[in-house]
Every structure is written in structure tokens, then in C-alpha cells.
């Protein structure tokens, strides 16, 4: 699986290298789009010192962690949201006659490293936020764990979005509400949302485990909903559970395709 992915990703990277100007523009475009979100945070904190109980450095930390996870998941699995185009144009048939998993082929299709620019940008915001926060060494180890868990959660969301497109071939944009919506949702502390939504994001669709619960643990802040502080340590478990659901959904989607072949 990993070998095939690396092989196909490397192939697409070389294909993209044939258009260096386009590559540079797409990289710059990604960084500028990410810059807009940062500019929005700047405008908000030009008007207020705290948002829903959190200051600028804490928001930078939460933003950086979730966006780094999202950018990496988007880099590796973002092309899953093109599945409906593969279904409509018939290229999924070509993938099904090759001796490799369609998941790997779709995820690596048109892989370009330009999305790495966005990851570096988010990583920089995370680093600046962390450096100003004074987090004790005993809790810093949680930061890489939460980023990796976040990557898995967003990758699972891309997979679920892809699986959904097997049903909604004519309306693939619905998947964006979950993938890009999840990325937007986790930009700000979840305390801005209604507690019922936050509960749904903790016990249902586990987006609270991207940066909110583990972030509270790193920051040493109590959960506004009163959950114990070790809840944040459950991020890897929540990520794996969602990944399992996504894998089942993807398999069901492929099975449905093979039994309708639209």
C-alpha cells in the first residue's frame, strides 16, 4: 500500500514538475489562502483581547495544530474528493483493472507537493504560538500526538466524503461541508459554539479530538463542559475509531460501484 502510494505520488510529482510556473503559483496560492484565515484572526484580535475565553497566543496554538493536521491530510488524501469525477469520466474503471487498491490510486491521483506550503505555514503559526505559551515539558509530548491524531481524523473525513460521493455523484460538493467544514470548525476554540454542538463533536463526529480536547490538556485548562483532563489523551483512540468507520464506508462505496457501475 505505502510502496504503491509512494510510487504513484512520485510519478505525479514528476508530471507536475513539467509545469514549474503553475506549480509555483499553486504553492503561493495555497499559502495566500491560508494567510487569509490568519488575517481574519488578526482582524478579530485587533478588536478584542479574548474570544470565548481564549487569548491570541492560545488561538494561534489551536489554529496551528488543526491546520497543520488538515494541510498534511489534504496533501496525502485530499484527492479522494475527486472520486466523483473518476466515476463520471470512467477512470475508476481503469483503476479497477490494475493490481492495486483503488483507495491508494485515487488518493495519490494528481498528487502534487504544492500543498506542503500550507503545512509549513500552519506549522510556523503553531511554533510561534507554542513558544509564547510556556507549556511545561511534561505536556509538550502531547503536541505531536495531537497533530498525528488530527491527520488521521481529517484523512478519515476525506475518506468518508469520498465514500459519500459514490451515492451523490452529481453533488460531490456535499463532502466539502465535512472536510473543509471540519478544518474551519477547528480553527477557533470550540467554546465559541453551542455546548450541544461541542458534545456532538466529542461523542459523535470526533472533531473535538483534533485540537480541542488535547489542546486543553496541553494548555492545562479545564474543559468548559466539565470533562476530565485526561479526555484529551483519548485522541489517538478517537482517530482510530473514525478511521475504522471510514474504511468500512469506503469499502461499501466501492462495492456499490461494482454493483451499479454507473
Amino acid at each position: 500500500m505505502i510502496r504503491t502510494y509512494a510510487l504513484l505520488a512520485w510519478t505525479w510529482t514528476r508530471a507536475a514538475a513539467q509545469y514549474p510556473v503553475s506549480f509555483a503559483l499553486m504553492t503561493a496560492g495555497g499559502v495566500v489562502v491560508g494567510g487569509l484565515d490568519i488575517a481574519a484572526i488578526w482582524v478579530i484580535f485587533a478588536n478584542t483581547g479574548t474570544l470565548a475565553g481564549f487569548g491570541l497566543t492560545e488561538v494561534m496554538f489551536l489554529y496551528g495544530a488543526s491546520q497543520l493536521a488538515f494541510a498534511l491530510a489534504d496533501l496525502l488524501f485530499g484527492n479522494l474528493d475527486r472520486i466523483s469525477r473518476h466515476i463520471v469520466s470512467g477512470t475508476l474503471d481503469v483503476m479497477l483493472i490494475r493490481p492495486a487498491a483503488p483507495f491508494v490510486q485515487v488518493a495519490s491521483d494528481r498528487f502534487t507537493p504544492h500543498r506542503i506550503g500550507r503545512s509549513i505555514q500552519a506549522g510556523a503559526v503553531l511554533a510561534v504560538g507554542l513558544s509564547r505559551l510556556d507549556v511545561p515539558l511534561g505536556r509538550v509530548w502531547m503536541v505531536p500526538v495531537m497533530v498525528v491524531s488530527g491527520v488521521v481524523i481529517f484523512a478519515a473525513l476525506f475518506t468518508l466524503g469520498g465514500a459519500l460521493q459514490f451515492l451523490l455523484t452529481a453533488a460531490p460538493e456535499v463532502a466539502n461541508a465535512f472536510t473543509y467544514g471540519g478544518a474551519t470548525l477547528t480553527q477557533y476554540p470550540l467554546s465559541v459554539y453551542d455546548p450541544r454542538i461541542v458534545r456532538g463533536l466529542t461523542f459523535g463526529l470526533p472533531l473535538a479530538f483534533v485540537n480541542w480536547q488535547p489542546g486543553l490538556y496541553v494548555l492545562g485548562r479545564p474543559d468548559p463542559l466539565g470533562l476530565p483532563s485526561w479526555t484529551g489523551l483519548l485522541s489517538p483512540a478517537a482517530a482510530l475509531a473514525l478511521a475504522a468507520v471510514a474504511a468500512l464506508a469506503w469499502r461499501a462505496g466501492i462495492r456499490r460501484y461494482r454493483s451499479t457501475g454507473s
Partner: protein
Amino acid sequence: MTVIPGHGAAVSLYPRLAWYGFRRHATYWAAALAGAFTNTVFGVLRAYVLIALWQARPGLGGYDAADAVTFTFLTQAFIGPMQLFGGGLDLPERIRTGDVALDLVRPASLQLWCLSEDLGRAVYLFVVRGGPPTLVGALLFGIVAPHAPAAFFLSVALGVVVSFAWRYIVALATCWVMDDRGLAVLSMVLTTFFSGLMLPLTIFPGWFGDLSRALPWSAMAQVPADVYLGTADPARALGFQALWAAVLLALGALMTGAARRKVVIQGG
């Protein structure tokens, strides 16, 4: 359809093109509903962030919290009709394939032709992609009633024209700039940020705020929303939009002429 040059043809041609634009987009109803769903979800997320901000700073930018929520769902509703993320025109594709040469030799203005189709598209998307976010916003959070409904609809129409005039310029620039994707990204960045889609322009600080409110993109979302909320003088707001519409349409007309000369002399 054959167009017979003459007096009667021009009168009925453009309304008919608008009707075709409407019908063409009506065939993609599933995609439009999916877009409306996504716009609604993002509207809910944005609304909570703005509520938190207005809790910290009541009365910020001349809005109260209800105004801010209304602003959010209105601007989300504008994404479809105003094409705030870009696109909506066939022109870049037709320039890439060279088909634009056929369009430029028609006995009708290319710019008016595209504008008519785009207005038809906008009417359809105003209903299908604008309705759901507004409705859900009203049900979940409650939104305020329009201050001057007639002026608001006029302002939306002018906003569509400004949006079209801008997208037409960006599309036609493909004749001279090789990479159209770079232009599309640049246009999207400018439009999403300076239209008021990300945050109300009224809370942008200092000279940056003054500048952003004077730029043409504010005519696409900020100004119609302000006319709805009654936070802008309708006459001045409509005048501002009309001015930008005239300037951008004139620029587009100049570029059309230049493109025609380029195609005729260099053969595309």
C-alpha cells in the same frame, strides 16, 4: 438558434440569453443544492465565531449581535449568485480552446452576451443557493427583517453586475496571461477577503478598513448586506455600486476591443 441582425433581434436576443442561462443552471440542481448545503454549514460556523466576537465587543462596527448573524447568512447566501469564489463563466475555457474567436466575430457584443447569460444564472442561484442558508439562519438564530426590501433587491442586482464585470475582466485577461489558474486564485483571494465574506469590512481597523470598503469587491457582499440591515444609506450605497459597475464594464469593453484586434491580427 440563428440570430438575424436587425432591430428586432437585438431587443429579444439578450432576454432570451438570460433565460437560457437560467435554464442551463437549472439542469445542475443537485450541484446547486449541494452548494447551498455547504454554504449553510459554513454559515453556522461563521455565525458562532461572530457571536463570540460581538459578546466581547457589543456594538462593534455599528452592528449588534443579531445584525452580525444576519450579515453572516446573507453573505453566505451571496456566494452562489455573486460567484464569490470565482467561475460561473465559460469564457476562460473558450479562450483556452480558441473557440472565443467564434464569439468575437458574432454580430453581438460578447460582453453583453456573457452578462445576459450570467444574470440568468444569478437569478437561479439567488433562489436555490441563497434561500436555504437564509432560511436555516432564520430558524436557528433568528435574523432581522430587511430594512428596505426594494433597495435591497436592486443592490443585489447591482452587486451581480459588479461581480460579473470583475469576473469578465479576469476571464478575458487569460488572452494575455498564460496561466489562468493563477489568475483564478488571485481573484478568489481578493474577492473572498475584500467582499466581506470572511468578516464584515466594518470591523477592519483604520486605513485598511477605509481602503477595503472603497474597493469594488465590497459592492458584491458588504454593500448589499448593509442595505438589507439599514446600516448604509441606500442612495449612496446604490450609487457606489453603480459607479463601480460602470467603471469595470467600461474596462471590460476596452479589453474586448483589444482582444478582438488580437484575434483578428494574430489569429488567436
